[in-house]
């Protein structure tokens, strides 16, 4: 039997982490949580997950970006799928976060709150399950 695929979720909101974890576990994944950027990067290195979901609105906007950069510069993080989570942009309700071209590669931009089915479908697409 195949081991469960591992997903790391990095977000400074504990409740959001909890809700996201439940959804992903329902989808059959093993979920790891980190409440800040530093822990997130450390966990990426120690756990070596198959996919990570990173909140771009932690503390400061640049924290999310820094986590993304650091993970992409690791051996394991170079090519594995990374999703970013954005809430509604502070500048205007309908201008959501879109990474410019010179950003570290992002496989998908998700907007909070994410529909359960959508999240599982997107993850499934990347990890080849379901």
């Amino acid at each position, binding site marked *: 039997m195949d081991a469960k695929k591992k997903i790391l979720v990095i977000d400074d909101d504990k409740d959001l982490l909890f*809700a996201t974890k439940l959804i992903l576990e329902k989808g059959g994944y093993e979920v790891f949580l980190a409440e800040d950027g530093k822990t997130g990067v450390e966990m990426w290195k120690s756990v070596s997950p198959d996919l990570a979901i990173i909140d771009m609105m932690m503390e400061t906007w640049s924290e999310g970006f820094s986590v993304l950069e650091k993970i992409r510069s690791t051996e394991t993080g170079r090519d594995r799928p990374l999703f970013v989570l954005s809430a509604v942009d502070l500048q205007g309700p309908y201008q959501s976060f879109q990474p410019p071209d010179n950003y570290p590669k992002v496989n998908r931009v998700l907007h909070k*709150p994410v529909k359960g089915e959508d999240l599982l479908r997107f993850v499934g697409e990347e990890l080849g399950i379901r």
Partner: protein
Amino acid sequence: MSARNWAFDRPMTDQKPVILIIDDEELMRSGCKQALERIGCTVLTAKDGAEGLRLAREHKPDAAFVDFKMPGMSGMELIEILSKEIPEMVLIMITGYASIGSAVESIHKGAFDFLPKPFSPDQLRTATRRVLEHRNMKIEANRLREEKAQMEKGFITFVSHEMRSPLVVIRQSIEALKMIGEDRFDDQVRELFEKCDRRIKGLEEMIEHWLDISRIGQGTFTPKQDSLSTAGVLERSIDELSPICRKNGIDLETTISENVLKLTGDEESLVRVFSNIIGNATKYTPPGGKISISARSEGRSVKIVISDTGKGIPEDKLPYIFDPFYRVKGKDEVHRGSGLGLTYCKKIVESHGGKIQASSKEGEGTTFELTFPGHIDSV
């Protein structure tokens, strides 16, 4: 010399106020200089318009007294130039005997006041005090206004973020509940979740609208002044609402006249206005009904009409539909919106220089007419 009066000091600094005297008579210049140095001013003098202009540009005095009758550049001309170039500088026209007409004209050209000759040193000092007080107050008022706007802007952003965050978490938690419940939950439980979710979405919408309305009210909302294709803007709203029209079996008919004038304004807000109105129409129009959207030019204006064949609004309620939180209560009120949608629409339309009107017949349908000034290409 009297103790320094803080009212004279240049705002925000301890420096003496700087006054410029522009008069072709040597006696006037030295007399004024002496009189004002007595009350702690730094006085610069110029014997004609050209020199006055040069000194003004170089030193940016707080105020200038300009003689009406001078050889070369006239006082009036100088005042006109100075009030445009250095608007913060307060200008007083020194007028000759019996030239009230020109005195008044000088005020139109930018002078704050006029001082008729002959005047005593005391009169000059009084005028100067008044002028400096006025200038200080103006500067202070501007500073406060800017500070207030900044604070409000920051406040609005802060509040919006603070208010949105918990709602995002709640909605994500509901998503998780729906997922983990799945087969365990019966229909009633699922329905409760749906209701919660809808109400929260309504709340989120309300916050957005409220914030925009606040921004408009406080003048911190500055809509863009882009030239917009009327068809383009409408099409965006139509695209947004077509899926739900299809789903509900509502026919969506669009008639946009080919040479309809362009609109001027902020595309995002206008799209939201149209989406709001069309969205309302979808909520109140039963399957098999129709929503018609048309746009045409009427003289220099653009007229957009959105009408539906829905349940309509009772006549006695119609005048109030743009009021904040006014809801036409129906027995089968399934769709609880934010209550601010139409309020928001009206504010946005009006901030674009337009008008919005609604007409309706119960059981037959409702029509919204929006009129905007057409875009005028700048030459």
